[in-house]
């Protein structure tokens, strides 16, 4: 486990370093030298991690994800949320997140979740939309009701 992970990690960083160094050759003068050097050092270190892992006899178990079901659920829902914030509006998306994520993680007290969600959203609204007047992604359902709003 640990061995394979470190080999991949080292290769990833080495690749990243080489890619950066290659890209930096296009940059003019001193602005290219610095990232080129950084990229090469990164590649060397990545290589060192890989070589060390290959030569090491140790190979202990090291889980990348402790509880895959929950972690992946949360990660996927978080990604969907970020994708939805702009098209359907900040408050709509956030309210959905506040309800969907706990339920997906096994929470069954819907009323509790809804109460917390509403209180929390109200607080955010007070701070960002009323006090600071920061424009957040607009709610899609508002334009549904007509051009106003």
């Amino acid at each position, binding site marked *: 486990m640990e061995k394979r992970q470190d080999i991949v990690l080292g290769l990833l960083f080495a690749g990243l370093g080489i890619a950066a160094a290659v890209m930096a050759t296009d940059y003019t003068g001193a602005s290219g030298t610095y990232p080129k050097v950084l990229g090469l050092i990164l590649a060397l270190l990545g290589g060192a991690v890989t070589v060390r892992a290959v030569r090491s006899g140790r190979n202990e178990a090291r889980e990348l994800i402790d509880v895959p079901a929950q972690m992946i659920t949360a990660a996927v829902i978080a990604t969907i949320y970020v994708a939805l914030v702009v098209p359907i509006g900040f408050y709509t998306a956030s309210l959905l997140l506040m309800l969907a994520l706990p339920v997906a993680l096994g929470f069954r007290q819907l009323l509790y979740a809804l109460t917390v969600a509403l209180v929390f959203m109200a607080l955010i609204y007070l701070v960002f939309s009323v006090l600071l*007047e*920061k*424009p957040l992604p607009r709610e899609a359902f508002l334009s549904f009701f*007509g*051009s106003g709003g």
Partner: protein
Amino acid sequence: MKINTILLGLTATAALAAPALAEYPERAIELTIPAGAGGGTDTSARKLAILLEEKLGTSIAILNVGGGGGSVGASQFMQTKPDGYSLFATWNSPLTTVPQVQNVAYSLDSFTPIASTSETAYTLCVNADFPATTGEEFLAELAANPGAYTYGNDGIGGTMQLAAERIFQAKGIDAVAIPFGGAGETLQNFLGGHVDIYGGSISTVLPYVENGEAKCPLVTSAADVPALPGAAGLETLGLGDKETLLWRAILGPKGLDEAIVDKLANVIEEAVNDPSYVEFLATKGEVPNVVKGEDLGARLQTEYDALAEVSKNLGL
């Protein structure tokens, strides 16, 4: 069904019949500033926004989008809807200078010019013991010692650098440009003696001219500047056509309704000439300067063309 149709019809007619102007503005306006909070453009725009809020009867939310010498904010703003609720408060550099040195996604056509607000010159200053005091002596000293002097500026390819280089090119001067992150940083290095010449806005260095630590031989405007009586305007040096100013303006995205442009331009003109704003500008060494609508577009184009020539000669 019927009610729905009527409702839909009503909304549609309302949306069509209501002229954009009559109700404008009916909600908050977002003002994008292509620079970080706390800088010169930011302070001027925020002060102006207070007056505009009063006159327009709506609130104005400010969004600072710094980076790339203003090009990040300009590119982001370019994509907003031309409904009058997204405005852009900028200084001239992101529009006329930055496109000369960066590959930017916008051009002057990507914006609707509304009105300029204020302008000021850049200045070049030296320590009190520098062997030249007048503009003429200063340029002669630089010309006599090619490559000997360093001058701090606001960043490579920034308007400040181009302003200085236009003069230097005309006089055949070779001075080493040291780019800093802004006028404050330039001042810090100038006062510490790390660079020989301060290049930047007048207001930043003014207190040190007043206490005698620094002297400013010239300004980059054609005319003299009242706040710096010792500094020569370019006209007196015979370089009147090399004038480069720092000026600020408010623009909208491309395709902004003409009626809205007119309304905003007039309100901006009123606000800029408000005594409190004029007084505020004076403390920053700036003067009100309102050029509206198409005239502003022409001004941008002229400056763009002039700077294109300089940067070509500089090889930027």
